[in-house]
């Protein structure tokens, strides 16, 4: 099960992920990502993300393939140790911006977009 809450916090779009991203729910995430990444600066709150499968990582991988050079910015924050280790294992952490909390995430996104 995955619940995605989208909150507009101009100039940011905030996605709050609650639950698990697996092969089936990754489609849901993919659609939402497609929607928000076209709108600019994106923050993703993973505080309540319990699990992410390789298909879920694939969604971020796809974003990364698209975002290269497009100027869109995305920062993930609030990842649990487990989730973080999954990103690290695959190596995606080296390309995606990952912050500790929301404030840090906003700071990170502002710095990089300057």
């Amino acid at each position, binding site marked *: 099960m995955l619940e995605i809450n989208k909150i507009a916090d101009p100039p940011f779009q905030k996605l709050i992920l609650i639950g698990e991203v697996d*092969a089936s729910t*990754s489609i849901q995430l993919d659609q939402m990502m497609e929607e928000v990444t076209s709108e600019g600066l994106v923050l993703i709150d993973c505080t309540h993300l319990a699990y992410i499968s390789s298909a879920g990582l694939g969604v971020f991988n796809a974003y990364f393939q698209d975002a290269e050079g497009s100027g869109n910015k995305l920062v993930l924050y609030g990842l649990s140790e487990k989730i973080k280790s999954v990103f690290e294992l695959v190596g995606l952490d080296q390309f995606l911006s990952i912050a500790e909390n929301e404030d840090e995430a906003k700071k990170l996104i502002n710095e990089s977009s300057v």
Partner: protein
Amino acid sequence: MFNKKGLIRLLGLISIICWLALLLSSFNYLFGRWMEQSSQNIPKVFLALFFVCLILFYQNRIKRVEQTNFVDTLWKVFVTGLIATIVSLIISSFLSFFRDNKLSQNVLLINFFYNINIGLVSAFLISTYVAWKRLILYQYSKWLFRFWRFFEYALWITIILNLLDIKFLDNYFRIIFFGIMVLALVPLINLKWVAYLNFGQKWKSLLLIGIVISYLIYFSIHLVDYSSKYRLVINLIDNVFVIALFTFILLYAIISFLVILFNLPTSSVFEQKLEEVVSFQRLSQSLQHGQKEEDVYAILLKSSISATNADAGWLEVNSMNEDACITVNEGFKNGQLHAIKEKIEQVKGIKQLSQIQSLGEVNKHKLSFSIKDNRYRSILRYPLFVKAKLSGWMVLVKGVSVGFNNDMLEMVKAFTNQAYISIENHHLIQETLANERYKEELKIAQKVQRSLLPQSLTHNEDLDIAAFSDTAYEVGGDYYDTYRIDEDRMALIVSDVSGKGTSAAFQMSQLKGIFHSYAQLALDPHEFFTQANLALSRSLDKSSFITSSYYIIDQKNKEITFARAGHCPTLYYSNDQKKADYLKNKGLALGVLRNPSYKNYVHVNNLHYKNGDVIVLYTDGITEAQLQGEEFGYERLKDVVEKNASLNAQEIQNEIIKALFQFCDTECLDDDFTVLVLKFNVNENVSK
């Protein structure tokens, strides 16, 4: 012994013989009376026998009634009565013709004619009685059947009582007669069959029953007339059985006649209800015979029009696949439909109907409206839902104002639901068929993919190797393989394509191609991953990536060179330290960074193996196997390997799978999983 037909014929024959015996015994009595010898009892016995035979004859002859042959049964009664009446009329006219003649005063001749009348009247009464019995017992209950039995037995007993000397309307006669009539009360009011007659059948039944009543009246007058005019050996008027039977038949005929008569005005309602039931049936069966969605909607429209008495209607709805708009129209010519559509658009409140979101909301809205048109005065606009989405409308129009009431609305609703169920079932069946086909194709894919995994793994003198792999679906995205580069070196790969199922399986087959092309070039892990990433970058779907571990095992130098491309860290058991540890070298999955800079992210490590060392390669299906939120995890895997490191590769692999299945049943393994165990058996004495 007998078949049914033979039995009927035999009973008919016996009846005739009994009648002849009755006739002869009557004559015998007449002669005997002159000789003052004979008794009146013998003809009475034969009469009783004659009745019994007739009852048995007609019980067998007149079949059980069905809904379709009520009128046939009445027709048979009518014909029997007609024959009896005609013959009886001929006899009367014969007698009245010779009224003044001495011949007509002849006792023998009169009794002969009277006997013929006895035969005819008995046959008519008994056949009618059996016909009534069939009608009364149409759809009988247990209680009705018991009441009927009582009545019937009582009636039979009167046949025997007739052997006693009873005269018409004496005390015995009255007691018996009233007793029978009390018992007849319950059967008399059972007229369920009337409800099943349609309008035309009711008229026919009225006519036939009316004629039957007139026969009965004629016979009663005729018999009374006879008994008052002539001296008779056997007088039917004195026979309680005949009188009781006669009264019963007449009463039932009159009651039936009246009930049918009063049912006439309501029969059109019953017929409409019946029509609705038939419509339901048609709707529910409609798609089973290879019909199209459109046909179901046509039936729906027709049924709705007839259920609401509407004059015309049309229907527009998106098909289930949303690829077409279905339009059906009934009772409109092209030009008319367009004109009325325009008028309906202008009706107040009709636009608000589009806000209906779900079937549950339908009842809250007003669906019938009045319109201003020369031809039509009121309309009903009913929403049609497909896949819980408002997809179209059915509109019914009527020439009278306020033409649609709630009952009609309920009926339309029921029809619509039924139609929807039919269409949905049809689609489900189609989908199931398609799925079956896919399943077959997937089975083939599974076979092909199974063949992509190595049947046997390359061995090495130093190396004992075992592998196990299973998929969550028919096909999976895990891959492992070995390749012997030269005498001393072999390459080994374990990979996991992101996602699972068919797309993962296709990408896995690409990886196999890459592995076999580059491994034979004896590329080192760094070069191998760089090239593989390059090749995959062009072909991988943008959301896909592949994690992989690549090993080159050099037997000569007892050295392992390896790199990790985002794959699960390898578990290495050192026999010296009796400890297992994960090799946490850095790495990046294939397909994440799709440019040459990928090479900067490949980190190659090497180590020297010793006797008894164990390498365990696996995919995340093992460590991420979950039971109620808890994962199998790295620690459990490590424990199993440490405990069983002294076993051979196959045994260690078995222990790992066993531990995994003990942790959770196979059902909770919802990802592909693979485990590969390598065990080094270096014979140190021989080695240099």
